[in-house]
């Protein structure tokens, strides 16, 4: 039977080497017994179409061989949710670091240090492929050894409700749609702000023909990039880990503290706006803008400093109130 030989040869290729001969021999005998019985009932040899139909009952060689394997997955169901979660988080972080920030930097200041980073799209894919490969291999290895040592079973067998973390007491989490909206808003705001330093009409509007941003702003490019990045990262963390209070507070501290310093330094940097050419309308307009900027930035510095102080005060108060009784009260009111 040419078809049988071809079929068994194909099955053999997918079987573990140590069992190939034994399994194929057994399959051959079972199939031949089936063929013999059918031929006896028909009173003739099976034609090729009938042989084909019989072998098709056994399924594709790969499917049949896979049923003999003890393990048919790379990452098992117990490990897969952790793997999938980690992969998604890493993808988001890589996209943020490799794609978004260099892209904004390239748009805003092509000659700036920020643009020296590799081509954003290229670097994204260069990082993505090894990250995916390494992560998959690590998780597959962990899953294999944990299954071998039955670590997951032992760990889950020793489980107790007492070992679970307390219910977070930070009040209700904002809806996902709102958190997505916040991320989009911070991305748009960050992109607008950084783009505005290059395309000044975004700030100055129709007056761009008369006035422009003074060179002082160039000194503040890197601090702006840092503040924008922290803002985007904070929105991203809020989206993914809505109860991650510590990172949100840290980001708030950087934003308000950094914002206060940048506002104060800008307010004390002299003229932030200058006329394109010295002329009465240009000079007058620049003077109005500069006064407005100084007042606005001073208020901004004061507000940011006040917010910074309030956050610090809240942190110290929380530390002072810490302890078992306080945590029980908080848990009780949650």
């Amino acid at each position, binding site marked *: 039977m040419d078809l049988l030989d071809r079929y068994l040869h194909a099955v053999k290729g997918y079987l573990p080497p140590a069992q190939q001969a034994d399994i194929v021999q*057994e399959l051959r*005998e*079972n199939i031949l017994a089936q063929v013999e019985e059918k031929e006896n009932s028909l009173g003739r040899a099976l034609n090729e179409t009938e042989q084909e139909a019989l072998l098709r009952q056994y399924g594709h060689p790969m499917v049949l061989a896979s049923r003999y394997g003890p393990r048919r997955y790379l990452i098992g169901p117990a490990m897969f949710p952790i793997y999938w979660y980690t992969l998604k988080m890493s993808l988001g972080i890589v996209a943020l670091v490799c794609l978004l920030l260099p892209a904004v930097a390239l748009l805003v200041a092509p000659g700036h240090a920020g643009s020296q980073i590799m081509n954003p799209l290229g670097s994204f894919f260069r990082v993505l492929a090894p990250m995916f490969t390494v992560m998959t291999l690590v998780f597959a290895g962990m899953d294999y050894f944990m299954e071998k040592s039955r670590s997951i079973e032992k760990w889950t067998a020793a489980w107790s409700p007492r070992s679970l973390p307390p219910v977070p007491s930070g009040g209700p989490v904002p809806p996902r749609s709102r958190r997505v909206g916040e991320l989009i808003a911070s991305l748009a705001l960050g992109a607008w702000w950084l783009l505005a330093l290059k395309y000044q009409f975004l700030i100055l509007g129709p007056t761009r023909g008369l006035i422009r941003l003074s060179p002082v702003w160039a000194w503040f490019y890197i601090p702006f990039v840092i503040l924008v990045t922290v803002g985007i990262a904070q929105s991203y963390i809020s989206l993914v880990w809505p109860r991650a209070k510590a990172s949100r507070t840290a980001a708030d501290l950087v934003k308000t503290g950094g914002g206060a310093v940048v506002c104060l330094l800008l307010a004390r940097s002299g003229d932030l706006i200058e006329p394109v050419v010295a002329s009465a309308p240009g000079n007058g307009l620049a003077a109005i803008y500069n006064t407005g900027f100084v007042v606005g930035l001073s208020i901004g510095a004061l507000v940011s400093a006040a917010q910074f102080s309030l956050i610090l005060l809240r942190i110290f108060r929380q530390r002072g109130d810490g302890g078992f009784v306080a945590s029980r009260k908080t848990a009780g009111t949650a």
Partner: protein
Amino acid sequence: MNDLFPNLRLELRRGCLILAVLAQLREEHYGYTLRKALADLGLEIEENTLYPLLRRLETQGLLVSEWREEDKRNKRFYRLSAEGGVMLKQLLEEWSSINASLERVLRMPLDQTVSSAGRS
């Protein structure tokens, strides 16, 4: 919905097939005659399910096998091991218990079933 039935049927049959195979192998068989014997009793099992299952049950120590010549051909004969016999007894008790419970559930009038579910 069309895909759901074959999947649920497969899940339902999986445990029952093991039970049937163990029970049938109280008497010695090789792969093909075992399949035929079960089919004659109304339990059709696909070849690509039954033959690997025999190997797996043997690896688990529930079956023993030997190559032996019959009708001038070498065949691998399987039968229940001592451990398999104990396992079969336990599984049959479990199956009887599940079956009896299911019978009671199915005999219960629908309105009573709904009110019991509401109380729990």
